[in-house]
């Protein structure tokens, strides 16, 4: 079936294809400007270009941090670009980082999907003289200058267990809903909680652990089955912003409010309803504040004034102790519960 | 009223396949359509059945012009095409196959499809053909013959006035073909108009009320009326006499050399139970038998394409028995499959690819890093093409664009390149035109002359008697006898026929082998499902 002379068809192929791809690249480009996920704020001349790259875009937990940061950026002369993979996929994130560090950013703010996969890119960044500040999820220490830990591990573990005991008593049965078996801060938090529990409440009994991959729906099903399998459970430890509301909604659905409590780390945006109905208590912190702090640290790091050890003071943000580049953002995480939840914004900052 | 095509022209992307063809069929008549492959027979049928639209000319229903944008327009008007390969949907039941595409017309009750009604209608239409079968069975299990009956039944269901058969008998064995012919006669007698395409001239002559010959997309002469003369028709078809070919076929050899292949008590259930035969150098051994008698299956298990449960296959000069087809081919025991499109050809690849596939490993060498030698391959391709006289513009032509005959020749060329000592040709002439057929007979003879042992499998006893030196008869998976020419070089046709049909020579089966033949009875007694494999 020869409709066109071969040569003509040949030309047709190429031209059509060329046009399509060029057009696409263009549209994708313009889209990037509009699409909020790129969320760059107006970059004043001579401003500090800072890149914030997170585990996965499209999760309120990170969106809140982003907004906090964007709010603080102009005052600090920082132009912030927010990005992240569309799936929580270490490999994809690393690929992004590798291109980000070539785009002339002065500072890199990073929340890593995996402690190791993102490490090489981060190391490369440092080699290129770009200070790397990780937050929420750390990479191996060699690969970053500073790490802003959401909440001091011991304090957070203590908070979880105290709330658990407060609700279920010292001998309650406990289940755990976590995100991934190999996600570092999950491990750290759970370990610290266990350590504190062994020391103070040896009576607590851990019945089982399920993983929700940070996805609320999955955590929901996991928690549901866990509660069905172990009817004795009084408390679900849910140190993950997907797991906490997920488990809480399972408790709500099963009509176990008052009998079972989800004690975890849930950002108010997704957890408020459950904290209100009494199915969840959350050990949390001011996400917007975390965003702000990151911006101040980024500015300092860019001006080479951010110490590896000592105290970092920035009047609007307050002052923090840095040990080997390690910062605990929330010394004592705030406990959000029925009573006080009304007094905070979704980002966790006090109202007024 | 007659249905006719007037001065129809059809061209595909500039290539004209039909030129001013006029063709009319009457109710109550069987109108034959003959022509070499590529003469445009099928195209004409497809136009008349609404599959294609004519580029020029009209279709006339009686005197008023009609046009069939789609198949169902034609079906609705009463024209039905029974395609060469029955197009039943294997997983659907027979009943559904009969009624599908017509639900909208009837069979729709308030609650959607009325399955009971569908079954009834299906059963009726089949019984009209004296064919009783459980219509809830999947059509996939039916033999080709049975499937064609179902197609006829569909035609009746749509109360079609004109039924077009495109080579209905080429995949059938003699018995089945005969049964179908009977059905066509019945249909004609009940006032249907029938158009029949076939390469089996004898069959056409027996059936048709008149015959139109197509050549290169044009009608040759006026439509012929009985009595038909074989030579006249053939001449019209291919525009030349067949004398030289016939001459070649007359030559006979009676001095076969040493045995090349001896097969003893070969078994590969269910199709092959107990098969024994031998092939000697320089002879053509014909395999006769009904479809399902295990000819093809035997050939396949001889070359190792089927696992055999029992039996010895002794190939002279081979120490041990071959393990696989590839193995057998290497030892010069080569098989050319029956179903060209499905089993033989790589239609989307070039003629060269198709011809050289069997010898590629001989064209590579360690010194060239096991790369296929291009020059060698070209050489091989041209060599093969010349040996079987494949006609095509270039070795790079896509096989699909060749005529059936040339495709078949390419496949034989492939086999020849493998340097066979014993060559098994399975239905090599099925569905190809008289000209190509003659050439293939010629090649077969020549191969035998040149000292090969050739096995020639065919459903047409006529052609077997032409090419073979001996004929091995298969019946229900067993070899029931070997027939040779008698002293006067004539074939004991009667004995042969009875072996084929009854699996026994007339001597024992005299009594029951001559029941008073009555068309309708004979028809009703035909087993439509004997082809189930």
């Amino acid at each position, binding site marked *: 079936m020869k409709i066109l002379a071969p040569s003509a068809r040949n030309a047709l192929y190429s031209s059509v294809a060329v046009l399509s791809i060029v057009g696409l690249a263009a549209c994708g480009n313009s889209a990037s400007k509009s699409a909020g996920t790129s969320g760059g704020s107006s970059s004043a001349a001579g401003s500090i270009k800072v890149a914030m790259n997170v585990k996965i875009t499209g999760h309120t937990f990170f969106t809140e941090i982003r907004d906090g940061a964007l709010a603080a950026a102009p005052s600090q002369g920082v132009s912030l670009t927010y990005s992240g993979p569309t799936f929580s996929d270490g490999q994809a994130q690393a690929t992004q980082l590798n291109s980000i560090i070539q785009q002339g950013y002065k500072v890199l703010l990073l929340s890593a999907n995996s402690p190791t996969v993102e490490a090489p890119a981060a190391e490369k960044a440092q080699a290129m003289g770009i200070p790397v500040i990780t937050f929420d999820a750390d990479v191996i220490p060699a690969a970053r200058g500073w790490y802003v830990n959401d909440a001091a591990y011991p304090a957070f573990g203590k908070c979880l267990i105290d709330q658990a005991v407060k609700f279920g008593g010292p001998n309650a049965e406990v289940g755990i809903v976590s995100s991934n078996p190999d996600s570092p801060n999950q491990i750290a938090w759970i370990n610290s909680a266990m350590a504190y529990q062994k020391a103070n409440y040896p009576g607590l009994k851990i019945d089982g652990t399920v993983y929700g991959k940070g996805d609320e729906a999955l955590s929901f099903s996991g928690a549901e089955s866990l509660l069905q399998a172990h009817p004795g459970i009084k408390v679900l430890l849910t140190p993950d912003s997907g797991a906490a509301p997920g488990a809480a909604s399972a408790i709500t659905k099963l009509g176990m409010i008052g009998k079972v409590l989800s004690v975890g780390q849930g950002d108010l945006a997704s957890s408020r309803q459950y904290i209100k109905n009494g199915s969840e208590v959350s050990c949390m912190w001011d996400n917007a504040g975390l965003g702000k702090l990151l911006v101040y640290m980024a500015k300092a790091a860019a001006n080479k004034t951010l110490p590896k050890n000592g105290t970092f003071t920035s009047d609007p943000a307050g002052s923090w102790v840095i040990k080997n580049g390690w910062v605990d953002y929330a010394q004592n995480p705030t406990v959000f519960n029925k009573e006080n939840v009304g007094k905070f914004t979704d980002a966790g900052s006090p109202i007024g | 009223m007659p249905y006719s095509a007037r001065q129809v022209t059809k061209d595909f992307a500039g290539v004209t396949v039909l030129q001013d063809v006029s063709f009319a069929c009457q109710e109550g008549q069987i109108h034959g359509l003959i022509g070499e492959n590529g003469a445009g027979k099928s195209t004409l049928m497809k136009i008349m059945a609404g599959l294609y639209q004519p580029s020029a000319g009209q279709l006339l229903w009686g005197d008023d012009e009609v046009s069939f944008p789609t198949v169902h327009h034609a079906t609705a008007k009463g024209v039905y095409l029974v395609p060469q390969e029955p197009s039943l949907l294997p997983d659907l039941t027979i009943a559904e196959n009969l009624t599908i595409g017509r639900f909208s017309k009837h069979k729709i009750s308030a609650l959607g499809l009325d399955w009971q009604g569908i079954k009834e209608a299906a059963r009726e239409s089949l019984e009209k053909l004296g064919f009783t079968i459980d219509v809830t069975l999947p059509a996939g299990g039916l033999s080709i013959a049975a499937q064609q009956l179902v197609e006829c039944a569909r035609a009746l269901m749509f109360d079609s006035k004109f039924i077009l058969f495109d080579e209905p008998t080429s995949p059938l064995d003699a018995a089945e073909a005969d049964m179908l012919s009977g059905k066509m006669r019945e249909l004609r007698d009940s006032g249907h108009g029938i158009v029949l395409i076939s390469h089996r001239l004898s069959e056409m002559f027996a059936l048709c009320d008149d015959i139109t010959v197509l050549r290169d997309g044009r009608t040759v002469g006026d439509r012929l009326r009985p009595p038909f003369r074989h030579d006249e028709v053939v001449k019209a078809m291919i525009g030349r006499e067949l004398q030289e070919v016939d001459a070649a076929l007359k030559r006979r050899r009676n001095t076969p050399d040493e045995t090349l292949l001896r097969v003893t008590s070969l078994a590969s259930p269910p199709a092959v139970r107990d098969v024994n035969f031998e092939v000697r150098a320089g002879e053509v051994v014909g395999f006769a038998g009904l479809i399902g008698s295990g000819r093809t299956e035997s050939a396949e298990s001889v070359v190792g394409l089927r696992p055999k449960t029992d039996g010895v296959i002794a190939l002279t000069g081979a120490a041990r028995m071959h393990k696989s087809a*590839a193995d057998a081919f290497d030892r010069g025991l080569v098989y050319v499959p029956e179903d060209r499109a499905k089993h033989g050809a790589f239609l989307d690849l070039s003629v060269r690819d198709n011809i050289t596939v069997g010898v590629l490993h001989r064209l590579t060498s360690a010194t060239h890093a096991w790369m296929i030698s291009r020059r060698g391959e070209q050489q091989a391709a041209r060599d093969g093409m010349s040996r079987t006289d494949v006609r095509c513009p270039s070795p790079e032509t896509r096989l699909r664009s060749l005529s059936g005959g040339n495709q078949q020749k390419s496949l034989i060329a492939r086999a020849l390149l493998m340097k066979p000592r014993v060559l098994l040709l399975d239905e090599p002439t099925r569905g190809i035109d008289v000209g190509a057929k003659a050439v293939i007979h010629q090649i077969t003879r020549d191969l035998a002359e040149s000292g090969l042992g050739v096995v020639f499998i065919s459903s047409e006893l006529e052609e077997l008697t032409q090419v073979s030196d001996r004929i091995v008869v298969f019946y229900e998976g067993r070899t029931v006898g070997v027939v040779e020419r008698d002293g006067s070089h004539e074939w004991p046709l009667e004995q042969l026929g009875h072996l084929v049909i009854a699996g026994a020579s007339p001597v024992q089966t005299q009594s029951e082998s001559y029941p008073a033949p009555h068309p309708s009875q004979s028809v009703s007694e035909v087993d439509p499902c004997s082809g189930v494999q």
Partner: protein
Amino acid sequence: MLGSRLGKADVFRPLSASVKAFGGWEFALLVLLVVEIVAFSQGAYGFWLGGAGALTQLQQFVGIAVASMGLGLVILTGGIDLSIGSVASLTGVVMARLWASGLNIWVAVLIALVVACAIGTLNGLIITYGKLHPLIVTLVTMFVVSSVAEVVVGTPTPYVFPSNFVNLGMGAYHSLPWSVMVFVVVAICAGYLVGFTTFGRELLMIGSNPVAAAYAGIRVRRVLVINYTLCALSAGIAGILMSALYASARGDLAQHLLLPALTAVVLGGVDIFGGSGRVRGMVLGVLLIGFLQQGMMLYGVNAVDVQLVTGILLGAAVVTKNMSGSQRFTRRLRRRRTNVPPPVPNELEASKVAS
């Protein structure tokens, strides 16, 4: 047509034929690639850098590139392998575990690759002897292997590999990255296999008509089993390269390997139903898609839009290809819809399933 896969063989073929094959398509890909590279070299900082930059970009998606070569081989036979992603992950994980248990890193790599091959062989055996559809079999393998990988990796996930291994992923020899060299080698091997050897020809024949291939005396089962093994091997190599590039092994490291690889192969003009395609095209396809994504990222286009454009490109490309006169697809569709012949045991069966 097939001659068009034989490089020089084109000499004795009418030009129109070679164009009718893939010439037109591959030419289009080439033009696109050039346009794209030039465009990004202008716009995106660090994309070109006198070629060195481009090589570093290639380094970023070399895993996909290598894996797509093997996937291409399988698709040529009309099959598919959904398990390459999880196989790649598993290879990296096994390698890491073995190394963590004190084995020499390169020995560990070898063993891991053997494991990958074993999985591929298993795929092939189940598909040919179990007479199952490749899509189902490899879907199962994908599920199972991904679980196994997660189990094997355990915690803590090993990292800190010897520098010479990490070099394989990130290092370069005079600005020619080692991993890119590996890709070049793999691509050359694939090209050699498909374009010049009997094995390659048999792949295409099986893809074109598996039953006829069996009747033509091709050892369909053997070829397919080897083929799926090769595919898994290339996936394994990809897994090793990625572990080296990211200096870490995770059970889900390569979980998203399949889709981009498949995209590249199809973009490269390989018929998803098998029987036609050239390594040349596959390479062009993978470079095209890879550089596009890298370039856009350097351009500051965010992940979402990159994803958008990739998806649209895939659709647009195949539509363009089918619209541009080639009727092969529909014809093949027709062929595949015809009834399968009555079941015949062994080779024939296997061959049918392979389609």
